[in-house]
């Protein structure tokens, strides 16, 4: 389950037979590893260095793999682009709204599923599992038409609701899993000591749920922050309501051949996601991988 925990426990197996192997025999292995690292990182590296290079170096006939001189000019161009602050605010609002709504609704549902017995619980869980695989790419047309009919086009609230629904099933499934590992006796003891059921949940189970809340809000953040299709087709006339991915996708139209500024904008947009992933890497590799596959 956990890659990191797995490492320390199983360290002997992966390596023991190879310890005695001569250095030369491990060469292809290390070459493969180096190639993997190179292929994974080069686009990210190239994005950041292009953003930091002066324009004449970007367009020179002899591109340097390591920039010779640095500049923040492209970042200034990107930050001063019209609407930059507005689109950041929109993206943050939509993301935060969707994540909070999804956590709240999912927490209630997960509690009902993990802690209570009621008729219809199994069908509900099945429905959530199916909803997790909803074909969102095929629902753009009806969602567009419904939003148009109800006057919800060009509104951030519409995007918030869509992203809430995209992340909700996964959040319910993961929180249910985490709740199931917390013994209900803990809450019952708190109730015996005079807590209400809600108070027992808040004081006892909620703190223990922190890793689950972390994993699910991370997933929600990444989903909502990156989402492009709905943001592109539901925000049409009122361009002030656009979010960052849509802004970035049209960046080249505004900035033409200014690839330095385009890469600076990409870097600024990617930075929160990259930072969050790197900081939480251990939880990501174990939590998200198992969560997404095993539910």
């Amino acid at each position, binding site marked *: 389950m956990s890659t990191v925990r797995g*490492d320390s426990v199983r360290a*002997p197996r*992966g390596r023991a037979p190879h310890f005695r192997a001569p250095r030369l025999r491990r060469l292809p*292995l290390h070459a493969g*590893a180096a190639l*993997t690292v190179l*292929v*994974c990182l080069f686009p990210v590296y190239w994005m950041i260095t*292009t953003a930091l290079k002066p324009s004449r170096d970007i*367009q020179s006939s002899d*591109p340097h793999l390591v920039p010779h001189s640095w500049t923040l000019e492209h970042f200034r161009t990107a930050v001063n682009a019209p609407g930059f602050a507005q689109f950041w605010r929109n993206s943050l609002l939509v993301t935060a709204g969707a994540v909070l709504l999804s956590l*709240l*609704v999912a927490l*209630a*549902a997960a*509690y*009902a*599923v993990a*802690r*209570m*017995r*009621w008729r219809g*619980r199994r069908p*509900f869980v099945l*429905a*959530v*599992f*199916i909803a997790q*695989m*909803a*074909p969102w*790419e*095929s*629902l*753009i*047309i*009806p*969602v567009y038409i419904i939003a*148009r009919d109800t006057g919800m086009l060009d509104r951030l609230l519409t995007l918030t609701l869509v992203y809430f*629904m995209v992340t909700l099933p996964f959040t319910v499934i993961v929180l249910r899993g985490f709740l*199931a590992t917390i013994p*209900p*006796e803990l809450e019952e003891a708190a109730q015996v000591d005079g807590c209400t059921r809600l108070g027992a949940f808040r004081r006892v189970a909620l703190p223990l749920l922190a890793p689950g809340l972390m994993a699910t809000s991370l997933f929600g953040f*990444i989903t909502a922050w*990156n989402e*492009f299709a709905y943001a*592109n*087709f539901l925000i049409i006339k009122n361009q002030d309501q656009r979010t960052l991915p849509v802004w970035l996708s049209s*960046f*080249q139209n505004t900035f033409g051949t200014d*690839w330095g500024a385009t890469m600076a904008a990409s870097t600024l947009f990617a930075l929160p*996601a990259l930072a*969050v992933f790197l900081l939480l890497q251990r939880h*990501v590799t174990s939590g998200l*991988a*198992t969560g*997404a*596959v*095993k*539910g």
Partner: protein
Amino acid sequence: MSATEEHAPPRRRPARTSAPPAPPRRPTRDRSGPWPYLLIAPAVLGMLYLLLYPLARAVLISLQDFRLRELISGDAEFVGLANYRALLTDPRFWTVVRRTFLFMAVNVALIMVLALLVALMTERLGRVWRTVVLSSLVLAWAMPVVAATTVFQWLFHSEFGIVNRALTSLGAHSFERYPWFAHGTAAFAILVTLVVWQSVPFAAITLYSALTTVPAELHESARLDGAGAFRILRSVTFPLIRPIVMLVLCLEVIWTFKAFVQIWVMTKGGPGDATTILPIYAVQTALSRQRYDLGSAASMITVVLMSGVLVLYFRQLFRQENES
């Protein structure tokens, strides 16, 4: 599903302290009263209005004559399966379907082979190398789709792109100012590269996690029995991680349709039709040509094609949960 059942016994105790002391072992099925239903109500309402209703609406529109006029006036005429008939007799639609399957097959094959290789390699690495490889996989995985797409456009830029520069300096002079996005096959290949680059990290990390759960003793005993590395992989390791491999495979097949974003941002389905796959075709038909009815019908055909894979996925998932 078994996961919920494992925790059933402790719940037999009365859940609420306010309830009168009940005789032990009495089923608490009806004890919770309306609470569970109130707790799931927001989730159920969300699923009904934001998921089931759009799906039903798409089915309805695909059975109507629904164009710009009907979008504005709001009343559409029911035409039965006419839209589906129009689509299925359109050679262009069949070309798109074939291209969708080609795109899916190439992507999934590359993703699975590369991910399996990376996972096997990562497992054999020492601690430092393994951390480095896993970190770079996570970093590539975390790269937002639109940002990655923009970066790939820059990498393959005809004049200043590093790929053309590198190929030219290696002696392939035909790549000097080669316009990748003007040639159908080249644009298709770049999109495949981009999707594979973004999908391998998740698959590789998941498969690596699965590999770490294979008991070491099995390898040892197979080795003592004289099995070679490849034989161990085929007869010991692979059967054990097969369920996870199947799950990842199904997910990657389903996620092929998420490539909508990369394709839309990079080529909008062009040049010509060269990178148009089903979701792109549906949205173009509906929102650019205002044929909402045909677009919905194409979407529904996509959903039907996908649900076949989805059924496989769920069978695997529930078998997996029952075993664990």
